[in-house]
């Protein structure tokens, strides 16, 4: 069972969520502040971070950025619906998904599983490595290189890229992507997709040109190519 780092300032949530997840067999380590959480990153080496956005001291969004500087560990934000602006900022900062508080443990675990789930290869027999323009996509190794240089991608980003590039030139609606990539079966929030696309573009597209790999199809969604 995965090691989860829970960064949450409120003791009742920290204890409650920690208790609920441990009961389901997760190895949970908790931190009450962002600083504490960042300090735990090295020693505990979590496979997933549950991060409260509203933290005293350095806030959740800053913690998220700091983690992303060195690690591509999946990050799920704990937010309150209505802190809409924070959700967007958090997603821009590199979070993979978010959970609205208050949430039952089963919901939290479902999100954790969805983020950790390796994307099953949608098309069975494929060569391990594909070349799309300057991009090299290794489906088996779940890695992407641009001009031979490895691009560090967060789990949601790599999943999205793999999913889109598996069917080049096919248009996917935001709702479809939410289902395939995020496993969101309810309260679908298209901003998750948009924020992820923006992050992915800053990493793989040329900054001065219009998007080549991940193109927007107005009124429908996104597609990979045509190159």
């Amino acid at each position, binding site marked *: 069972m995965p090691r989860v780092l829970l960064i949450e300032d409120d003791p009742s949530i920290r204890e409650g969520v920690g208790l609920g997840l441990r009961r389901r067999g997760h190895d949970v380590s908790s931190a009450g502040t962002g600083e504490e959480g960042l300090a735990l990153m090295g020693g505990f080496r979590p496979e997933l971070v549950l991060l409260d956005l509203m933290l005293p001291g350095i806030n959740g969004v800053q913690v998220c950025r700091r983690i992303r500087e060195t690690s591509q560990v999946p990050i799920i934000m704990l937010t*309150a619906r209505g802190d809409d602006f924070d959700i967007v900022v958090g997603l821009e900062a590199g979070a993979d998904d978010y959970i609205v508080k208050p949430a039952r443990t089963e919901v939290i675990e479902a999100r954790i599983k969805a983020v950790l789930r390796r994307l099953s290869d949608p098309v069975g027999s494929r060569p391990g490595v594909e070349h799309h323009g300057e991009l090299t996509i290794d489906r088996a190794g779940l890695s992407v290189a641009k001009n031979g240089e490895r691009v560090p991608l967060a789990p949601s980003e790599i999943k999205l890229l793999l999913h889109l590039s598996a069917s080049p030139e096919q248009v996917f609606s935001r709702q479809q992507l939410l289902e395939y990539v995020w496993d969101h079966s309810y*309260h679908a929030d298209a901003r998750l997709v948009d924020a992820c696309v923006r992050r992915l573009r800053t990493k793989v597209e040329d900054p001065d040109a219009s998007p080549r790999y991940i193109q927007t199809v107005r009124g429908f969604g996104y597609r990979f190519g045509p190159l």
Partner: protein
Amino acid sequence: MRRIAPLGLRTRLIAAFLLVAAISAVTTAALTYQQARNAILKQTQDTAVSTLRDQVEQQEVRLPLDQTELQRIVIELGKRGKPHPWIIFGEYGGVRVSTNPGTPTSSVITDNLREKVRRHNYTAFQRVEDQRGNPWLTVGVPALFEHNGSTVSTGAVFYASVPLSTEKQTVEAMVDAAKQGAVPGLAIAIVPALLAARSVLRPVRDMRRAAQRLGSGRLDTRIEVRGADELAGLARTFNETARALEQSVRELQDAEVRARRFASDVSHELRTPLAGMLAVTEVLDEDAERLDADTAKALRLVSAETGKLAVLVEDLMEISRFDARAAELNLDDVDVAEAVRKTLERRHWVDDRIVTELPERVRARLDPRRFDVVLANLVGNALRHGGAPVRVTVRTAPGEDGERLLIDVADSGPGIAPEVLPHIFDRFFKADAARTRSAGSGLGLAITLENVRLHGGTLLAANGPAGGAVFTLDMPLEARA
């Protein structure tokens, strides 16, 4: 019955001014005309009468008069017409002569005049018109002579008929002058009328604009007070009223903001402990199995109520955000049929309790999450309070500004009681006063309505012809954030 449109203040003021000007012009003209006409005619009359009398007196009338003698005198008199040339008629018994050889008897001398002259033996005159409408002055002078100190009539009478056409022309010229003077006079009268109208209308117009601004919510509107007349007083009163209104509205708004913030703060504060509680309800439910009955019951109660409380707080937060106008639309282009199917699938309403009519390939621009909430609430209510089968019908119709998306959710239940219908979207409204808390928070339909409004749509509740309740959602196919 069509009422005539009321005339504007400006029109009425100008009309009043013109009326006054017209009345004065006409009165002045009439009086002037009368006076002048009388003066002109009198002068002519006096001259003619006195001239004829003098002339007749100077004539030596030798009786008995014969035709020749009479003719001589008449001709003699005819030469001395004053102020205009005149025609003289002489009458003596049955003898008639005149300066007009063709007409010895005048057509304009009336019997009335003859009668007067004969009866009084005195000069008389009369103004008459001939058949052609030309005015004449007719003067009759009896020829008298002194006899033993008394005046005796000779029986001869001389008449003069003087044409008055010159006087008529003079008078007509005067009337024309009066007429021609009145028109520019009236035109000039419009100028002060306009000035007066403007001085009244401008403050009135300012006030109207200010009232409109005030009505549209600009409560800081004030009018400039000029002068000290009644209009200025009205402006002052307006300003005082606006000030009082602004103050009370501000107090109300502040109170409302405080109340809303309180509700929002309370729900925020409740959310944190609830998040902790909700995370451990599973533990309670699982372990209840292994404890004694009472403890197990208590734990399950706590667990169930925690869940309900979480829903209630979540709904309160949602309503607070609508109240604070902080609710945002996150629009996306979706296939309506697919969105409806997804909503039903997610809640496992996929059996024969639900009948759908979904036209394919209808694309709409809406907020998928909010749309999901709306539809789930309507269908959930229909199943819970109405009864299966529930019919969901999607259609599109042209609207005033673009296509509309229409969704009907009809149940097969007893329908909504008429006394409940007006309150169906109220917060925490309980259809049955004695009813205990239901599974919902009591905010479901209120939130649903707000979500629809956010899309620029309307939601109507009614009872269908078959008896069940029908909720009709009508919103633009392309919502605008």
